[in-house]
């Protein structure tokens, strides 16, 4: 039998000396920031029942195991669903808003030899609000995300979107489930030419092209007709404006084609990019815990540490 006792699993690595220092430094500064803003730390288990993630992640993207009763477990691929679970159970009667932060790793079973990381260290926050404070929280969370970026100290770009725009266009046009899946994939990959070949309303064809600066709102105003969509645009524009209070406008972009890959997102979503790094390093958005609004984001600490190391 072949032994694997001298290698680490693909997608994972041992961190040595300076690499540890770099990662801990980022973790510490982020956690310090979150705690100073009144967020309390939680640690959730490495392994969870598969059911916690069932609606959000494809089975093949997770590391799986079974417990002694044969029940399917996974290594957590994301920290938000466990926090939703916590907020709906042990913290159910806790005073809202709940302000939680975490510093833990997540696991993804990626196709091998693609150079993707299977183990990712993240620091993040979640705020589970009472119904009336929704808007306010969004702004505070965005401000905190910006401050997190400033702690990281790189040249960053902030991106806003709202997955309700896409979802509403699908609903009002009575698109059937199978076609929706295709449109979703094509929108996510900004596949303009394939979308153009489909027999679907113009708004769905144009949506993925609506990204960039302030001009996006002008174009969207013409394209999106219903009152509901116009209202969503106004909310997004307001968020954009409030973001301008603490970020240079050049550093903010909008993408109306964001559809919220993580299936739990239900409203405004945002990404953070560092110049020179090929993947988003911050991802966040609005979701629901039972019937209350919640918002959160996570910073990919592994990516930031690695990026710094390379520089």
């Amino acid at each position, binding site marked *: 039998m072949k032994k694997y006792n001298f290698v680490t699993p693909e997608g994972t690595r041992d961190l040595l000396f300076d690499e540890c220092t770099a990662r801990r430094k980022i973790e510490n500064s982020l956690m310090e920031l979150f705690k100073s803003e009144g967020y309390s730390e939680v640690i959730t288990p490495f392994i969870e029942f598969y059911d916690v993630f069932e609606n959000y992640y494809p089975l093949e993207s997770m590391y799986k195991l079974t417990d002694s009763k044969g029940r399917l477990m996974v290594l957590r691929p994301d920290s938000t669903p466990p926090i939703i679970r916590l907020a709906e159970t042990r913290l159910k009667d806790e005073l809202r808003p709940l302000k939680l932060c975490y510093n833990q790793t997540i696991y993804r079973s990626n196709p091998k030899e693609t*150079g993707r990381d299977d183990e990712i260290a993240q620091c993040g926050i979640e705020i589970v609000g009472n119904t009336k404070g929704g808007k306010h929280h969004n702004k505070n969370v965005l401000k905190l995300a910006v401050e997190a970026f400033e702690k990281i100290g790189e040249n960053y770009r902030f991106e806003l979107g709202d997955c309700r725009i896409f979802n509403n266009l699908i609903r009002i046009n009575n698109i059937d489930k199978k076609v929706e899946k295709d449109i979703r994939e094509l929108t996510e*990959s*900004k596949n303009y*030419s394939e979308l153009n070949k489909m027999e679907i309303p113009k708004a769905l064809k144009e949506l993925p092209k609506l*990204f960039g600066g302030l001009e996006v709102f002008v174009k969207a105003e013409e394209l999106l007709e219903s009152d509901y969509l116009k209202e969503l645009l106004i909310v997004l524009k307001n968020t954009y404006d409030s973001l301008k209070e603490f970020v240079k406008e050049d550093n903010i*972009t909008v*993408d109306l084609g964001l559809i919220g890959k993580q299936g739990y997102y239900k409203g405004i979503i945002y990404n953070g990019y560092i110049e020179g790094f*090929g993947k988003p390093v911050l991802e966040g958005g609005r979701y629901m815990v039972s019937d209350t609004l919640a918002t959160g984001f996570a910073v990919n600490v592994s990516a930031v540490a690695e990026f710094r190391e390379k520089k």
Partner: protein
Amino acid sequence: MQNDTIRIAVTKGRLEKKAAELFAHMGWDSAAMTERGRQLIARIPEQNTEIVIAKPPDVLTYVEHGVCDAGIVGKDTIMEYGGVYFEVLDFGFGKCRFALAGRQGEDFYKGHGVKTIASKYTKVTRDFFEKKGMDVDIVKIEGSVELAPLLGLADGIVDLVETGATLRENGLAVYEEIADISARLIVNTVSMKLKKQKLDRLIKSIEENL
């Protein structure tokens, strides 16, 4: 990579030639590409552009990781290897199609037995039959897949077909079309946002010169 430089990965071979022609048509000095010899990176300084020559699946990898901003690659490679990037433009050249083929005059779907399919493109094959709700055995063959049904290893093959001449000369025929293939422009998801103006200009210029 400098912030104002655009780096484009181009598939080695036929697409590389087509791309060089297109760039020349766009008014670029593409001599660095056509006369690159064995060099793998061709620089076009006055366009602030670097052209990286790579094998098809590697184009996807370099773009996904963001070490190249954009890539020119066949839809066949995209379908087989997948990945995370934007697919923003159909060049319309490098055309061919994926097809299911087998021995001429036979009914592929006859009988209840599980069919064996030989292909270099195992993911494309799996996806195609999955959509049909059909269980098949897939055997990976690296080249000249036409041999597999001739030697009796497979009931059919899934392969790229251009004119169909190779199939005909070997007594095979297309049973069913799977997908139309052409060259695509893919873009890294972060570059698309951070280098929007430059990439918009590139895309527009390509569209005008196709």
